[in-house]
């Protein structure tokens, strides 16, 4: 019970690990490019949680600043990625990444 009531670093890390796992699963298995993007966002959020948790329990500002930049990065990434997805859709009339394998041969 001790471990459940005393909210410590491991709690956050567990949440982050689960988020990361889900994100990774989305990236690996989903055919829809948009869902893959969502998975990526999950992974980034998991990273953010990790950074902030370590920052909190370490007392420094590094994690906070880092998570700030990650958000910025995520925004940029989402914009570019969606533009690319839309271009892909124009070109292949589909966002099914498994169908887009013209580089195979």
């Amino acid at each position, binding site marked *: 019970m001790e471990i459940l009531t005393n909210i410590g670093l491991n709690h956050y890390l567990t949440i982050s690990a689960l988020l990361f796992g889900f994100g*990774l699963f989305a*990236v*690996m*298995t989903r*055919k829809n490019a948009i869902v*893959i993007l969502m998975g990526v966002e999950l992974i980034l959020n998991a990273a953010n949680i990790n950074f902030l948790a370590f920052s909190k329990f370490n007392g420094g500002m590094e994690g906070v600043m880092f998570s700030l930049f990650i958000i910025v990065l995520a925004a940029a990434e989402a914009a570019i990625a969606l533009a690319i997805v839309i271009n892909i859709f124009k070109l292949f009339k589909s966002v099914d*990444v*498994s169908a*887009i*394998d*013209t*580089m*195979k*041969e």
Partner: protein
Amino acid sequence: MHSLIQISIAVLLLPLLSFVILIFFNKRLPRRGDFVGVGILGATFALSFYIFWSVVVQSYDPSFRIAWDFTWIDFGNVPGVGPLQIKMGIVIDNLTAIMLAMVTLISFLVHLYSTGYMAGDPRYGRFFAYLGIFTFSMLGIVLSDNLFSIYIFWELVGLSSYLLIGFYFEKDTAADAQKKAFLANRVGDIGMWLGILILYSQFHTFNYQEIFQNLADGKFDMSEAWLTAAGILLFMGCVGKSAQFPLHVWLPDAMEGPTPVSALIHAATMVAAGVYFVARIFVLLTVDALHVIAFIGAITAFMAATIAITQNDIKRVLAYSTVSQLGYMVLGLGVGAYSAALFHLVTHAFFKACLFLGSGAIIHAMHHEQDMRWMGGLRKHMPWTFATFTLATLALAGLPLTSGFMSKDAILAGAIGFANAEGGGIYYIIPFLGFFSAMLTAFYMGRQIWLVFFGESRTHLKPADDHHHGHDAHGSHGHDDHHEEVHGVHEVAWNMRAPLVILAALSIFAVYSPDPLDGAKGWFMKMIPTPETVVGSASGKAEHGTSSANHNAAHLLAEAVPAVGHSAETDAHHEGVASEVIHEEDSHAAGHGDGHGPEFSDPRQAAIAHEAHDAHKLAIVISSVMVVLGISLALIVYVFRFVDPDRTARAIRPLYLFSFNKWYWDEIYQATFIKGSIVISKVLSWFDANVVDGIVNGAGALTRRVGFATGGFDKYVVDGAVNFTAFFFNTSGAVLKKLQTGKVQTYVVLLMLAVIVYFIYYFTQLIY
């Protein structure tokens, strides 16, 4: 700059101006700008006549000469030669002045005539432009002071001749004729060019004066044969341009051009340029070269006369007659009758221009019917034409009281004198051919006159298909000619009549000499004395010794070239003023028969001159007899019909055909040179495509073979290793390729697998 030079530059450039204006603006000018051409040529003639007047009439000086030049190309300081400049310039002497007046007069008259003859032609304006550039080039030949510029203008008259012969270029015959003319002239020109090169390579100058001076100074380092070759090669230019045997074939075909062009270019001026050029270089011709020239001239005169007998086309008869007369002139130069030849050049220019323009009037009136067989009876319809044509015919035939008689007689006298001086034998062929041709001339001209002007009209006899052909050929003229209209034959308008009258008037003896029997008493032959040769004869050198002969000549040349070795009597008049003209005439008249004449330091020239003088009377008699004989023959055959011409022709059919087909020259050239060139070109082209290129491609193939052979080792050993490597990677690649699905997510899965494997490894390390 002398004022005459300035005027002569204006004379030279005015026709060019006419060309430029007309070629660019003829469609925008009223009347297609013909008045520009006629007006400019009128002005040119006026200026030329002023030059003629002030040079020949006002200052009576046989050695008159002014020159002007400018640096055209500056080669700088050439190694081995020193400063080298190519100059262009103008020279005016008596000959130039006379030629200027003659050329511009005829050109002006032809321009005037063309306003009538060419009226209604779709390219009317362009015709005058072409005449302008022709006149410019011809004046350039006359005024040039050096071989280079004369060559330039030489080819330019060739160009204008090309353009004008092909004026009706829609006709294939015209297109063929223009090409033929240009190419025949080119053949002559390359000879001329080589002659120029021989002289230039020795003296590094093109200027006549300097070349003669250097020759007289004995600076010619190559052998005598080269000098003879130079003379003959330069003469080749004349052979081409003056349609001498063997390059005469183009001139009759050139009659495809409009008739005024035939009159101006192919009768009066351009073809005479060859003779003029030979006269210009007369002093450097060696004896051997002169002999060649004389024989060529004689053969041409005879051959063309025989051909002219059987031709039916009115212009072709005149064309062959022109060739024949040019042969006379060349013959005259060859035998040393320099003045006579040039005299004949001028007289011939006028009466032959008259004949051509007359024939043009006839053709015009007959609605472009050129075949004499279908003419006849025109005397009543065209009295003016008939009168002038007849007068010119008499001059051509060489009847006394005409200009032609005097000049032809002088040439024939020279020929007899030449044969005598050379010691007879084979050289008598030349005067013999000359006299025989004179008879033939009288015969064929009598035939022509009778066929065209006398008897009844034979238009209706013409076969229909023949007529159709004629119609087709001249369709471009826009005339709607039918048989019936021939009955409407009438005299031509004033602008075509006036030139005929003027030219006919210039065929009368009085214009040239007071004595109708002796041209030598006239102003012309006094103004154009035979120049002293600068090369001497072989015999002359042997007798006098080379150095003294050369020295003598050099001395004379230092004063003026062409040097004038004049008689003692005329020496006194070297300062020459007009008031003394009469005195001059008197002294000559008084001295006639005393055997005097121009005295030459060169013994050969002196002997010829002497003999020619002696032969003068003989020549008169023989040539008169010949002419009468020829005319009588014509009368017998065509007027009195004692002999039926057609039956005679059948009786001597091979001879008739030989003449009718122009000695088969065209066929011979077609079979040899033209076919030959085409065959050679085909062969070489095949050679190029198959052999030369084949070698290249073969070399490529060979390289490949050698590559294979030497590559045997490579193939099994070196290549074996290489191939194994390739095989290995190929197979492994084929396996690994399966992993490359192109699906991003597969890669992610694999990546994560790797990460997990690493984790497992990491933790096992951590645990143990």
